[in-house]
């Protein structure tokens, strides 16, 4: 009994409520004639789409930099990589990997500068990261208009320059991961094997990394910077590494998202992508100074499950579309809950 109580306290009421709400939605689904197999397929797909961006939160949380509200930098690097891969007419798997390869240098450089900045402002990372992210998105809005891209599928037809707000990746690398070894059962259920394998690979690499020498040093910096410094760990270097990894994962994450979603969304599109990633890892049980692979897995499934199931089920139940409002309240409520929670010093 006591075990259960501490478990609930550890896990937090909001998460439990969300969990049971999701279960309720799945139980209700057949009664309102929402196909369960299609829903599960949808949840899996969206899990794969978003998981790597959620994974990107882990290194920075572990190294004590807090929630990466500046993930937009990584996302924009990914967008640069994706648009460049289209510009160079890279198709198929080559295009997808090419996009990642092309995004990498941007992610590394931006991440490095971003890290330099955040190392100067320890303790204020989250607010500053948010505004650095926003202003960089706005800067890139100008850049998308004036950069000399000329692939006709990407630029505005009448002007011949300036990128479109949404660019289709059809004919390049649409669903390249989703369709890899995909298992189709019946009319509605598709198991996106390739996508989940790719996500699994990254999660595994992250898991390995966190157990490596650098990874443990990074965690040490996060849990007690003074102690880490005393034992000879270069705090700033560890933070820099974590921020660069996070930015790079943001870039990979958005490219994975795009290949499944089918479109590259430019201009202000990256800014609403950051908060769901933050919310997801928090729903998974992470706090602002501790996160694990389990948090990523559970959080993404719960959050994306909620986003998939509420529109279909709640709409059929109540005859109105409340999903948007539920999404706003759940995701921001979750972040708020994490921010106001008293941080446990020792574990």
């Amino acid at each position, binding site marked *: 009994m006591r075990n259960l109580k501490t478990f609930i306290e550890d896990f937090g009421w909001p998460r439990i409520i969300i969990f049971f709400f999701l279960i309720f939605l799945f139980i209700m689904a057949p009664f309102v004639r929402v196909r369960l197999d299609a829903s599960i397929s949808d949840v899996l797909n969206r899990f794969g789409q978003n998981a790597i961006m959620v994974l990107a939160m882990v290194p920075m949380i572990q190294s004590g930099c807090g929630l990466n509200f500046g993930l937009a930098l990584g996302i924009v690097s990914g967008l640069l990589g994706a648009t460049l891969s289209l510009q160079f007419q890279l198709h198929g798997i080559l295009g997808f990997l090419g996009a990642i390869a092309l995004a990498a240098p941007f992610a590394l450089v931006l991440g490095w500068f971003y890290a330099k900045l955040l190392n100067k402002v320890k303790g204020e990372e989250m607010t500053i990261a948010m505004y650095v992210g*926003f202003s960089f998105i706005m800067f890139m809005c100008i850049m998308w208009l004036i950069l000399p891209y000329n692939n006709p599928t990407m630029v505005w037809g009448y002007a011949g320059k300036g990128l479109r707000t949404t660019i289709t990746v059809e004919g390049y690398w649409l669903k390249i991961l989703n369709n890899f070894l995909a298992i189709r059962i019946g009319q509605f259920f598709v198991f996106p094997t390739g996508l989940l394998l790719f996500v699994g690979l990254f999660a595994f690499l992250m898991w390995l990394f966190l157990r490596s020498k650098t990874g443990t040093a990074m965690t040490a910096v996060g849990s007690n910077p003074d102690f880490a410094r005393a034992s000879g760990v270069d705090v700033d270097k560890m933070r820099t590494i974590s921020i660069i990894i996070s930015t790079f994962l943001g870039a990979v994450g958005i490219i994975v998202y795009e290949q499944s979603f089918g479109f590259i969304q430019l201009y202000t599109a990256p*800014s609403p992508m950051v908060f769901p990633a933050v919310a997801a890892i928090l729903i998974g049980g992470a706090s602002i100074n501790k996160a694990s692979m389990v948090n990523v897995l559970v959080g993404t499934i719960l959050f994306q499950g909620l986003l998939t199931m509420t529109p279909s089920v709640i709409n059929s139940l109540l005859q109105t579309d409340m999903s948007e409002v539920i999404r706003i309240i759940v995701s*921001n409520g979750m972040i708020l809950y994490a921010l106001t929670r008293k941080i446990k010093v020792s574990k």
Partner: protein
Amino acid sequence: MNGTTKTRRLAIRGGLLVIYVLLMVLMIMTGRRHTILIDNKDAADGSYSAINGMEVAIDRQESSEYYPGDRDKAMVQGQTHKIKVTIFDDNKTIEKEFKVPLWSDVMIISVPKLIAGVEPWIEPFTMAEQIQEAQESGPPAGETSFQSIGPAQPMEVEQVPPTP
């Protein structure tokens, strides 16, 4: 001692609350806007006839001219108002005060009735009533009322976080 300060504090708070509510009521009473329709038409039964030409002003608003068959509107705020009619034929000026009920949005003043002394010359004017009348005289409901049943389309709401 302690008890008296407590009751006094309670009384003051209660008083403030009452004043607050009264202020809100006052704002509704003085601030509600009404539309006044000014009408210059013959009666259906010929008991009075339209004025041949006149100038009507509500309160201190700019006056406007009316000829038979005209109808115009004025916006007023609050409940007590004055109407001033100047008839061109005999250059006679009539001034009357009238009250607008608080919750009626549109009132209609028939100036010929006012001149002829027919009461009531001011009446509430509800479009809803007219619409209802029109519907009642229309075709039976069974044939036409299928379309509007069912959930309305939800509107677009900006996605969160609504950053620019």
